[in-house]
Structure formats: structure tokens, C-alpha cells
């Protein structure tokens, strides 16, 4: 029986095995193989031969403290602190929005998700704008300009700012997870406890909390898993004072040409991520099955009256929303129109960085955004990359979803679904490192893709697959099998059925999935930072480049452009009717 679905399935399996699984092995193999450039670090080096050298150096060598243990501890500390902060903020906000009668929920909700929509970089830049300290170089920040004294260094760089900004970036993520769980609570559960005489606190402790506990723990672990893979943010707020996390250390090592050391760190980072996701899955499996709320006919969600506290809590939440969601964007904007960085006064305002031509006295002659070849090229690249990746990811995603749903009893189909999910487990910077090792040289018929735009599209598509397959599965599951069988009985071939029945019916799901990918790829930095060359620059990497050169205004301008683009994308999605909330919840389920 020549079944076109099986053929497509086998092709996809082969391609994904090469693009997802093989890079991981390639990365691991690299850490055990003497590299060409290692002759200068060790006399024993025999390029191509097996060695423990890199692992020993990283884990037990004289530099291991600086290379691994220091960054590891920093990663854990910032990860844990930011996770706790994110959970406290996300959890209480979720309760306020889902269960209380706080006013203004409708517009507070989108504002509270803004920090997650913006590139993580944006919050870090905003932080720098305020707390920058001339002690480490550069101009004074707002804090110093207003208060007249320099901020303490712990407030400018290191654990505190990194943890706080990470928490700001990730609390919406925790918020969505907890809100999802809270929304499943049937007030009747609480009411029946109330009738049996339980007090409010007892109800919270004995009924409400146990029900959301699994989601809470899952949120803790997933948030932690995400924070440890963050690169841009800790780099910006840590590197100036030699504060490194594992992720930034990977970048630093590559910059120094210590590629193999970087790969060892990447493997360690992947292991950490796998461990946290494995823990979360184990916990969810064990708990959520038992705690699944049985929603009967009369499901009701009653809002809890805040009484006199109503407006007070509203003000606190609004202020918080403003500080974490809107203020950073304003700061980016302000920063991008200042002639001399760090000098706050009306006479210092300029539109040069947006519409000025090259002027050797300003910013080393870099022209403003609209005349800047680098920026214009990067904008074009960004849009091209985001568009192509979104289209490919969605189409491949829907095909994989179709196979996974309709051939659920075929072990190969299940395998395909699982492989497509794997990129989710790789911290993005480590995934970039894998592709660096895989595509640096030609292998068989596959050319060395390093430095090409194709490689960026490839990695972006693969990294979006876990999400687009999930979206696709939701879409395909909703299309009853009988709809397709009716066409099959009428004699329609698989191709025709896919085109005429599946695609049109899944299209709205696919479209919103495409938009999500478009926005996601646009603000991505860690994933591609290792693979970018001047010719393939995108906005985020160009911004990062300017930040490294100290051209703060241009960085701010670029990140602001990305922020506005992503927000417009989100607004379009919002209009389409599937807000960020619903979709993220869908992804997590």
C-alpha cells in the first residue's frame, strides 16, 4: 500500500533526526574530540582524537572555578531568586485577576503580559538606563542624574538587577500558568466547604491551594528552566563587572576562541534544562491526574469581593503594571533621543539617532535609523527571517500535527511528534551552539551553512516547531475524523483531502500560530547570536552589537523598533480573538 502519509512521515523523521537529534550528538562528540585550534592550549592535542581534556579542564582544571562553578552558582542564584519573585508576583496577580472582583481587569491583563512580549533585552536596557554607573564605564544613569549620587554597584550589575529583570520578564509566564489553574476551580467546591463551616483561610489552605499546587510547582520549575537559558539579559547586566552565568560564559568562551570549552558548558546547560523539565513532568503527571477538577454541569466561578481593598489593590496592580510593562518602553524611547548619553535636559534632545545623517562628531559617524544601511538591512532581514520561519514552521507544524493525531497508533508518528518537541528542551543559546558545530563544515551533500541566511531560517523554524506542532494538534483534533473519511469514501486522494478539508478548517488556528511564530522569531536573540555574520544581521543582533560598542541610543532605538513590531503583532493577534493568554495556556496544557 503506497500511503503518501507514511512517505511524508519518513521524510520528516529523517530530516528532523538530522536537524534536532544529530546536532546534539555532534555537540557532545565535539566536547570529547581535540579541536584544530587546541594545539595552542595543550601540547598533547591530536586534532580529531578522543580526549577528556575539555571536560577535565572545565570541571576540575585550575580555571574551573571561573569557568564553571562560579557561573553555575550565579546561574542557580539568579534563577532561584527570579523564579521566586516571578511566582510571587505572577501568583498574586493571577488570583486578583481570576478570582477577585478587582476593577479594570480587561485592560490590566494585556499590560501585565507586556514584559513577556517585549524582548528580554528591553527590560535590561531600561534597567541600565536608570542604574548605570560610571564606575564601570559609560555615562551616569537616571538614578545618579536625579539623586546626585552613584547607585551602589550591587544595584547596577550582578545578582540583584539580573534576578529582578529576569523576574519582570518571566512573571507573566508564571501568571498564565497559575491563572489557568485558578480558572478551573469551581466556586461550588469552595462554597460547599463554606457550608460545612470552614473559615476563609481554611478554604484557601485546604481547598484552593491544593488544587493549584501542581500548576504552581510546574510554573516554578518551568520558569527556572527558562531563566537559566537566558543570555542577553545577564550579559548586559553582568558582563561589565565580570559577572557570568553559564549562558554568558558560553558566549564569552566562543568569543575567546575556546570553542570546545563553550560546548562543554552548553552540554551542562542542556543537562540542567532537561533535569528541570523532567522534574516538572514527573510532578505534573503524579499530581494533576488526581487533582483534575471534575467540572459538572453547574460550573460557576464566583468572584471574591475585595470590599474596601478593591481600589487600593487596583492601584497597586496598575502601578506595578505601569512600572514593568510601560515604563521600560518609555525609557527606551527617551534614551534613543538623547544627544549625549546620560545628560538629562531638554537641550540634549535630538532626533539624530532616528533621522540624522552621518555626523562624525556623533556616535562615531553612525547615521540615524532611517539612513543607516546596517539598520535598514537588519530590518529587512528581520522581517524576512520572521516571515519565512513563521510560514515554514506553521506548515511543517500542521503536517506533523496531522500525522501525530491521525496516526496516533503508529509508533513512528509518536516518535515524530516527540522529536519535534525536543527543541523546547534545549536552552536557546545551547541550541545555537549545536548548529555552530554542525554546520561549520560541509557534510556530504550538505554545504557549510554557517554564515548563510538559510541557517538562520533553519534554526528558527526548528526552534518554533514545538509550538507550531502544539497549535497544529489543537487545530487538527477539532476537525472530526469523519469529515475526512467522508471525502475518502468519495474517492478523494490524501493530497486533495489535506488541501480541501484539513487546511481550510485548520486555517484560523494556523494563522494565529504563524503570527505567534512571527513575533517570537523577531525578538529572538540568544538562539541566533552565535550564528550571525555581518551580512545576516537582524535588528536584535544589531542592537546587541551597538550595545557592546557602547552606542546606547542606537541600541535603544533598535530594541524599541522590535518592541513596537512585536506589540503590533500581538495586537493583531488580540484582534483575531486569540489573546496571548489563551494561546500560552494552550501551549502549556
Amino acid at each position, binding site marked *: *500500500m*503506497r500511503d503518501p502519509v507514511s512517505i511524508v512521515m519518513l521524510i520528516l523523521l529523517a530530516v528532523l533526526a538530522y536537524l534536532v537529534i544529530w546536532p546534539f550528538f555532534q555537540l557532545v562528540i565535539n566536547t570529547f574530540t581535540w579541536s584544530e585550534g587546541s594545539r595552542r592550549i595543550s601540547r598533547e592535542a591530536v586534532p580529531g582524537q578522543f580526549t577528556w581534556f575539555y571536560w577535565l579542564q572545565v570541571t576540575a582544571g585550575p580555571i574551573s572555578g571561573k569557568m564553571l562553578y562560579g557561573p553555575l552558582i550565579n546561574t542557580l542564584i539568579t534563577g532561584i531568586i527570579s523564579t521566586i519573585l516571578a511566582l510571587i508576583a505572577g501568583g498574586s496577580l493571577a488570583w486578583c485577576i481570576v478570582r477577585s472582583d478587582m476593577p479594570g481587569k480587561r485592560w490590566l491583563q494585556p499590560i501585565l503580559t507586556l514584559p513577556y512580549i517585549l524582548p528580554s533585552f528591553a527590560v535590561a536596557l531600561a534597567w541600565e538606563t536608570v542604574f548605570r554607573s560610571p564606575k564601570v564605564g559609560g555615562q551616569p544613569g537616571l538614578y545618579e542624574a536625579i539623586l546626585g549620587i552613584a547607585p551602589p554597584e550591587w544595584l547596577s550589575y550582578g545578582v540583584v538587577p539580573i534576578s529582578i529583570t529576569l523576574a519582570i520578564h518571566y512573571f507573566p509566564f508564571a501568571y498564565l500558568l497559575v491563572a489557568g489553574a485558578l480558572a478551573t476551580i469551581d466556586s461550588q467546591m469552595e462554597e460547599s466547604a463554606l457550608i460545612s463551616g470552614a473559615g476563609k483561610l481554611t478554604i484557601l489552605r485546604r481547598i484552593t491551594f491544593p488544587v493549584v499546587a501542581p500548576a504552581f510547582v510546574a510554573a516554578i520549575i518551568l520558569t527556572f528552566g527558562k531563566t537559566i537559558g537566558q543570555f542577553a539579559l545577564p550579559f548586559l547586566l553582568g558582563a561589565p563587572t565580570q559577572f557570568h552565568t553559564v549562558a554568558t560564559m558560553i558566549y564569552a568562551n566562543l568569543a575567546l576562541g575556546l570553542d570546545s570549552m563553550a560546548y562543554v558548558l552548553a552540554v551542562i546547560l542542556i543537562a540542567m534544562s532537561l533535569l528541570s523539565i523532567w522534574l516538572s513532568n514527573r510532578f505534573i503527571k503524579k499530581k494533576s491526574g488526581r487533582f483534575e477538577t471534575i467540572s459538572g454541569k453547574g460550573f460557576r466561578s464566583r468572584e471574591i469581593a475585595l470590599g474596601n481593598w478593591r481600589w487600593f489593590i487596583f492601584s497597586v496592580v496598575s502601578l506595578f503594571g505601569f512600572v514593568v510593562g510601560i515604563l521600560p518602553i518609555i525609557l527606551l524611547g527617551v534614551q534613543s533621543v538623547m544627544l549625549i548619553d546620560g545628560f538629562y535636559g531638554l537641550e540634549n534632545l535630538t532626533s539624530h539617532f532616528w533621522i540624522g545623517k552621518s555626523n562624525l562628531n556623533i556616535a562615531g559617524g553612525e547615521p540615524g535609523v532611517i539612513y543607516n544601511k546596517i539598520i535598514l538591512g537588519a530590518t529587512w532581514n528581520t522581517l524576512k527571517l520572521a516571515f519565512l520561519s513563521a510560514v515554514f514552521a506553521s506548515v511543517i507544524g500542521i503536517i506533523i500535527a496531522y500525522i501525530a493525531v491521525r496516526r496516533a497508533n503508529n509508533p513512528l508518528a509518536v516518535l515524530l511528534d516527540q522529536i519535534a518537541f525536543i527543541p523546547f528542551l534545549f536552552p536557546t543559546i545551547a541550541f545555537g551552539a549545536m548548529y555552530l558545530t554542525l554546520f561549520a563544515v560541509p557534510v556530504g551533500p550538505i554545504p557549510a551553512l554557517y554564515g548563510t541566511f538559510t541557517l538562520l531560517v533553519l534554526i528558527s523554524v526548528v526552534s518554533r516547531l514545538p509550538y507550531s506542532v502544539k497549535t497544529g494538534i489543537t487545530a487538527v483534533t477539532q476537525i*472530526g475524523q*469523519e*469529515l475526512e*473519511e*467522508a*471525502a*475518502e*469514501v*468519495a*474517492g*478523494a*486522494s490524501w493530497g*486533495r483531502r489535506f488541501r*480541501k*478539508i484539513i487546511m*481550510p*478548517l485548520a486555517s484560523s488556528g494556523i494563522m494565529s500560530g504563524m503570527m505567534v511564530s512571527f513575533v517570537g522569531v523577531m525578538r529572538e536573540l540568544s538562539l541566533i547570536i552565535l550564528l550571525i555574520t555581518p551580512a545576516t544581521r537582524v535588528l536584535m543582533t544589531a542592537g546587541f552589537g551597538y550595545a557592546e560598542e557602547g552606542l546606547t541610543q542606537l541600541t535603544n532605538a533598535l530594541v524599541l523598533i522590535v518592541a513596537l513590531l512585536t506589540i503590533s503583532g500581538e495586537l493583531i493577534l488580540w484582534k483575531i480573538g486569540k489573546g496571548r493568554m489563551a494561546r500560552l495556556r494552550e501551549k502549556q496544557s
Partner: protein
Amino acid sequence: MENWQGAHGALTRKTILKGGGIMAKISIRNLTKRYGDMTALNNVSLEIDNGEFLVLLGPSGCGKTTLLRCLAGLETPDNGEIIIGDEVIFSSKEKIMLPPGKRNLGMVFQSYALWPHMTVRDNVKFGLDVIKTPKEASDRQLDEVLAKLGMGDLSERYPSELSGGQQQRVALARLLATKPPVFLMDEPLSNLDARLRMDMRVELKRFQSDAGATTVYVTHDQTEAMTMSTRVVVMKNGEIQQVSPPAELYKQPQNTFVADFIGMPRINLIEMQGDGQIFSNGDITIDFGWKPGIKNVVLGARPEDLKISSNPKAHGETYRVMAILPNGPETIVQLQRGKTVIIGRIGHDIIFEKNQEVKVTYTQTSLNVYDADTQNLISPINNI
């Protein structure tokens, strides 16, 4: 399964559309279908005549849908063969598995499976497009079918803008449009309300006999099975229990399962012991009028086989009335004698009181006797 053959010399539907009226006798031989450890169909064999209206009936999970889907080609059986007309469409031995579209059949799904993104007309047209019907012929055919089903005015609507009954008609139009010689229907009326269901039964039956298509129809509903079919197949646990015309099925169920399954209210099944032709269970005693030839039997007596009289002088044994359940034209009564409880049926104009004593006799010729060991029918003809 890699080398399974596709269509070879299959009559395309196009030729049928032109020529019309080919013979579509269906033979199912030793069909077995397993899902893991579960045997959904166990060695099922069945001959279906050209133009027949065959109903598959049985409790939930007995394999009706599975059999229908095997016929359609939506499931691949593990064993056996299926022949439609004179073409083998499935054979495990010869590794033939014709895909659904090549089997010359139309199917109505329980959910109707209307494509929500296509108008009524496009839904019906799809099948014609697949077989590349020229535009003119296709348009003519479409208009004709839609008019016949009274859907002419609604042809530009989308399925979501139709009532349940109208959706049902679209599903039917889709079936009729390509004029397949075989119709397969899986509980097509189960989503309609009781009234509409009755009307549609008549209509469906009319379309079927007009088209002369061999029809296999799955249902849960006994009345539907009895009123529409030429023959009924009763299934249980993936096996065929009985294949009979409806009247015979009611009168002579071949085993106690069928006897119990067919008929509302249920048949009275009473275990009895005896010698010769008089049997008793300690409470009641009945003379069968013939000799079953064994000691342990199960008596099957339909509620209407009881003759009940309130006259204390009448012939028969005395029972007490336990419950009276009026049901329109008839009344169901529950009677007790000793520990034995039986159900009887009387006209609505006969009034009994609770706890009243009545006399009961049985219509000897309507009684069925089953072997208590095998639960199979013992026919009087072989045993006199």
C-alpha cells in the same frame, strides 16, 4: 501489507453514472478484525443481496460500526474477504485492499460529517468533482438531487445555518449525488428528534428503493430496524447471532440473547424443568403441546402471548397483579405467581386493580422453547 494491491480493473463510478444499475451483491467471508487484544469482529460471514436493505442491530460495542467501516475500507480487517458485485475489494489471503474511494459506495456518517467550510451545494458537489464529472452533467445532477430532497433553496447555505433535519438531508444528497450502487449508513437518524425520525425513515426508504442500491444500515433502534429492513442482522460481541427478516426475528429468535434483545417490553424468559411436554418451575406449569426432548429448558413468552382474564372462573393459573403501567394504546402489567414475576400486555381499555387476582393462560403456538444449556431455540418441527 506493503504489497497490497490497489484497484485493478475497478468499475469507475463514471461508468456507473452513465450505465447505471450494476449488480451489487455483497459477500462477506470469515471477516475478523482485532484491536490489540480486543476482537471487534469474529469470523463474520454474510451474504447481502442486490438491492437489499440490511440492518445491523445489536448492543453498544458489538461491532456494528466496525463491520460497516470494514466494508467502506476505512478499517483494514485482519482476516477474511469482501466481494462487491464480482470484484474482490478485500482479501487477506490475496492481499487485496481497495481504498475506500475505489469501492463504489456512498456513506452517511452518524455525525453527517458535513464539511463546515463548504456550502450545501459544494458539499454535494465534492464527490462529483473527485470523479471529474463534466460541468454540465454535474450541474444537472446537483440540481436534480437537491430538488429531490427539497434543498434547492438552501443550496448556498453553510451547514451551520441548517437545522438538524436539513443537515441530514445534505448528508443524504451527498450520498445520492454520485449514484453509488452501495449505501452504507451508520445510525443516520439518531441525531434527529423522534417525530422527524419517523418521517425520515419513510423518505430514506423511498430513496433507497428508487436508487435500487444495496444498503447496509446500522442502528440501535429496534423499530427502525423492524420497519425499514428486508433483513436484520443481530450481533453480539463481534459475532452474528441471527440473520432474518424482521417478522421472523420477532417471532422466532434463534437464541435467548436475540429473544431478550428484540421486543419492548422484554420477552419473559423462564427456566423450567420437566419430562415429556409438561414443564414447571415450581410456581407455574405449562403444557407445550410437543416434546422438546430434554429436561432443562428456557421458555420464551412474549407479553402478548399471555391471555389474562379477570374472571375468577376462567381457565388457567391464578396470578396477582403487581404493577400496572399504561402506555398509550396498550397497558403493561406485571404479574406474580409464587416467586415468578412475568410481564403481560393488555389493551388500554381493560382496567385492572393492583393486587387483583387474575387467571393466565399461554398461547401455545407462539411460545419458543430454548435449551437451557446451549440457550438455542428448539424447534417443535424436529421434535414432535
